[in-house]
């Protein structure tokens, strides 16, 4: 009885996220102070903004109605280049990223291999596709081959990292059980690791296909071929109605790929 009455008025509060009050308040005030300064020094020329809005509207109205007809051959040409670039770079990129990803999984690879493969992934991930594309265009000249190399390179970083993380998250007990049967290393990969990571990796492969198609439009603008190059040409010629048609085609294809990949991902689980 005594115990109950003693504990009746005892208060409880959720422990704070950052324990030290000094650090907590310093961080809070620091962030508030920086934001105040940052917004205070942002210069907005309202005159130019008000001029820009009607100009933007005129620019947009040039997109309508979209013209699919007059540049149709170029659009088909650009699209087929883009699709070629997308499919080949996804396949090659994934093929290379599998050994790299295996090497970058902490629970599979010895330390030196791990650091080497993590290094490859870090380099691949640290550059945006456009920057690699500029470099590849300088290296291989204009055209879809530069785009293919760019996207393959970017795919390695994306896919390899996610593969490595998925392997690190796998159930160690299942892996242990297969190891205990006396399986060889490759058999162990095939029986213990692959079934655990495969469904997610198929889904991510399709997701990467989707990304690569979108990126193929972007890298084309810096000269790496594909639908992006067609789009760039259309803008250069002030043919905004053809540009609008190209954009619509890109949107349609991205949506189609996304819908299919979502469906396939559900199916492989």
């Amino acid at each position, binding site marked *: 009885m005594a115990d109950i009455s003693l504990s009746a008025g005892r208060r409880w509060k959720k422990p704070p996220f950052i324990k030290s009050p000094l650090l907590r308040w310093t961080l809070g005030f620091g962030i508030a102070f920086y934001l105040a300064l940052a917004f205070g020094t942002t210069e907005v020329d309202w005159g130019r903004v008000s001029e820009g809005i009607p100009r933007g509207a005129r620019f947009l109205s040039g997109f309508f109605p979209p013209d699919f007809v007059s540049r149709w051959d170029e659009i088909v040409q650009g699209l087929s280049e883009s699709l070629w670039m997308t499919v080949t770079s996804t396949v090659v990129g994934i093929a290379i990223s599998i050994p790299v990803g295996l090497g970058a999984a902490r629970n599979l690879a010895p330390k030196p291999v791990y650091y080497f493969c993590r290094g490859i992934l870090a380099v691949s991930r640290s550059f945006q596709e456009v920057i690699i594309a500029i470099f590849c265009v300088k290296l291989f000249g204009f055209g879809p081959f530069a785009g293919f190399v760019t996207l393959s390179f970017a795919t390695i970083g994306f896919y390899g990292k996610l593969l490595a993380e998925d392997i690190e998250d796998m159930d160690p007990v299942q892996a*242990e059980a297969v190891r205990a049967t*006396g399986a060889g290393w490759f*058999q162990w990969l095939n*029986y213990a690791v692959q079934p*655990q990571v495969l*469904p997610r990796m198929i889904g991510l492969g399709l997701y990467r296909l989707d990304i690569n198609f979108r990126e193929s439009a972007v890298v084309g603008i810096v000269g790496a071929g594909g639908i992006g190059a067609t789009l760039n040409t259309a803008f250069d010629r002030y043919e905004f109605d053809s540009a609008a048609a190209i954009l619509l085609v890109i949107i349609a294809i991205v949506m189609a790929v996304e819908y299919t990949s979502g469906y396939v991902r559900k199916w492989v689980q």
Partner: protein
Amino acid sequence: MLRLQKLEKQYRTGDRALKGVDLDVPDGQIMALIGPSGAGKSTLIRCINRLVEPTGGKVYLNDVELSGLGAGALRRARRRMGMIFQEYALVERLTVMENVLSGRLGYVGFWRSYFRKYPQSDIDEAFRLLGRVGLDHMVDKRADELSGGQRQRVGICRALAQDPEVLLVDEPTASLDPKTSRQIMRLICELCKERNLSAIINIHDVMLAQMFAERIVGLKLGEIVYDGPPDGLTADVLTEIYGAEDWEATIRKVEDEDAEGEETLEEALHEDHRPAVLDRDLLTGN
């Protein structure tokens, strides 16, 4: 014949999980390893097939010294040691048959296993084992579609597909209900007897250990504190292994539960076998 000599394991954290364990398990003997959590039971059986590397001492399987083997020889030695796990440890996205056949991985080459083109004799044996545990109608189900007891039976088939000389069994019943636990323990023991296999069974449930094992070894803080027949487990011995507790009450309760009729799948399949009757009066000290 499995022989452990001065087996030591010190983890990198400094914990000494095993402190010089000496143990001989003759062929065909079913030995239960009991002890509190953290006593080193799991470590002990994993040091035998070197899923955990022992830091000292020796392990002999027949005349082969296991702790000094290179990678290839270790794989060949592992084939002869079947392992059964606590949470079944089936590869969940593989089918029942693939899981059972994975017990043959040490015997077939990579491409054969990759294309699932196992020798017909392996497939025959897998069907026979699955039939023996009553699962031959489920060969193409994915492992994650099965119930706990069914999964553990597949786990048993996988271990036996290796054609082992020793079974290393780690808490086979920890995630099963009491009735399924008995079925599984009975099945393991029957199969060991059929094939004259020796088995080391880690088990929390003292009562199950007494029901099914011929020999009980009690492990406490990495040392063997009891090694003897099941009916030698008096309340004093249990206190020695686990610490002070009212053991009489525990044993009595279990006895009541046991008195309820047991009609199990395994009994329906093999009515000839009954667990050995134990003299529980001895245990309760009456």
